[in-house]
């Protein structure tokens, strides 16, 4: 699996936690101590079950000699 940067992880966890908080069913078994959407999202990411990835772009080519 591709290695995510800390920013990508944060973004994915955030997006997933939002879904969970709005009632999406968790993709893992929720046991007693991971009750908040964020905890669940983190656990899901660790297990690699979140159906979200990132689109990585190469840096845009900048035109040289601009003002």
């Amino acid at each position, binding site marked *: 699996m591709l290695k995510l*940067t*800390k*920013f*990508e992880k*944060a*973004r*994915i966890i*955030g*997006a997933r936690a939002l879904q969970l908080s709005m009632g999406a069913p968790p993709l893992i078994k929720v046991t007693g101590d991971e009750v908040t959407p964020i905890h669940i999202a983190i656990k899901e990411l660790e297990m690699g*079950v*979140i*159906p*979200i*990835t*990132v*689109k*990585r*772009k190469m840096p*845009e080519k900048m035109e040289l000699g*601009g*003002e």
Partner: protein
Amino acid sequence: MFLEPDEVKKRIEKIREEIPRSVFSELEEELSKVEVTEEELNKIIEEIKRRYDYSLVEPGEAVGIVAAQSMGEPSTQMTMRTFHYAGVAELNVTLGLPRIIEIVDARRVPSTPTMTIYLKEDIAEDREKAKGIAKKIESVTVDDVIKRAEMDLIDSKVTLILDEYELKRREITLEEIVEKLTPIKGVEVEYNENQISLKVPNPSMKELRKVATRARGQYLRGIKDIQRVVMRKEGKEYVIYTEGSNLKEVLKIDGVDITRTKTNDILEIHKVLGVEAARNAIINEALDTLEEQGLMVDIRHLMLIADMMTVDGEVKAIGRHGVSGEKASVLARAAFEITVDHLLKAGIKGEVEELRGIVENVIVGRPVRLGTGMVELKMRRELEEKREEA
């Protein structure tokens, strides 16, 4: 149980491409000194990889801001004491905060230009030869070797009274001075033991003054702009420190080690040796100044600053007239200084705002393309497909 040296080599060869060369060669060297078991070697390799990965900067990190803070914070702790004798006897060099400002502002001429001149290996340890080169470098004017100059309006002449002590110290003869003064236009030179008289044909105060200043400023020897030279023994070799800087001429002198000789005038380095050299000079000067104050700043911050200052081939200052003032985006420039002027001028010219940078997007109220803001999310199709199959 210990691994054979050949086996160790074979194993570390696998990670050669994964870590920086310097780390690899250090690992290689250290491992050649000790014996390790297989388990230990694996642990070492794993730890190296882990630490290297940890030290990498992740894409999206706000390196510019971190660099600015990393240099700004220590600057606040620097002592304001401008002048400092930097180890060398009686040589005065600007250090501390004023020096940092000077570097970052890319001033035309540093307030105290200095050079450090190294000598070629074969003569570096020879005191006499080093002295000879130092003598060739130090500029001597007539003014340096006279006690005073007298203007005589009656006889319409300027009399230079020589300082014998200085003459002896600098090994300059009377004849030498006379020879240098003879070409001055319309002047008749006469001399005796310790006096040189310059006869001026048409007697006027103005003319006398002119001749006097002209004669006093006459170079006798040495390189222009280098006012003073101090020699110091460092380890085995002699190193020459100068007050004043003229890299181009010093590098021409035979016996000077051109690979190590340096000046603290960054723009001069740019002119003589090019941008890459200027970039390195900025990094080294900034690092040395900070280190002298006992402050540790990671070299990568300084490299970024130096890169920003030199990207387009010339040395630009950080600030109004340089990096910040020449940003491509109108809004970014307007956010920095003189807002109205920038907006007005951009309007007249019909500039287009591309909204690529950070500042522009903050102003407009969009997420900035930095950190979490530059991540684009996408559905992961393969998971769905897997589920459908099942």
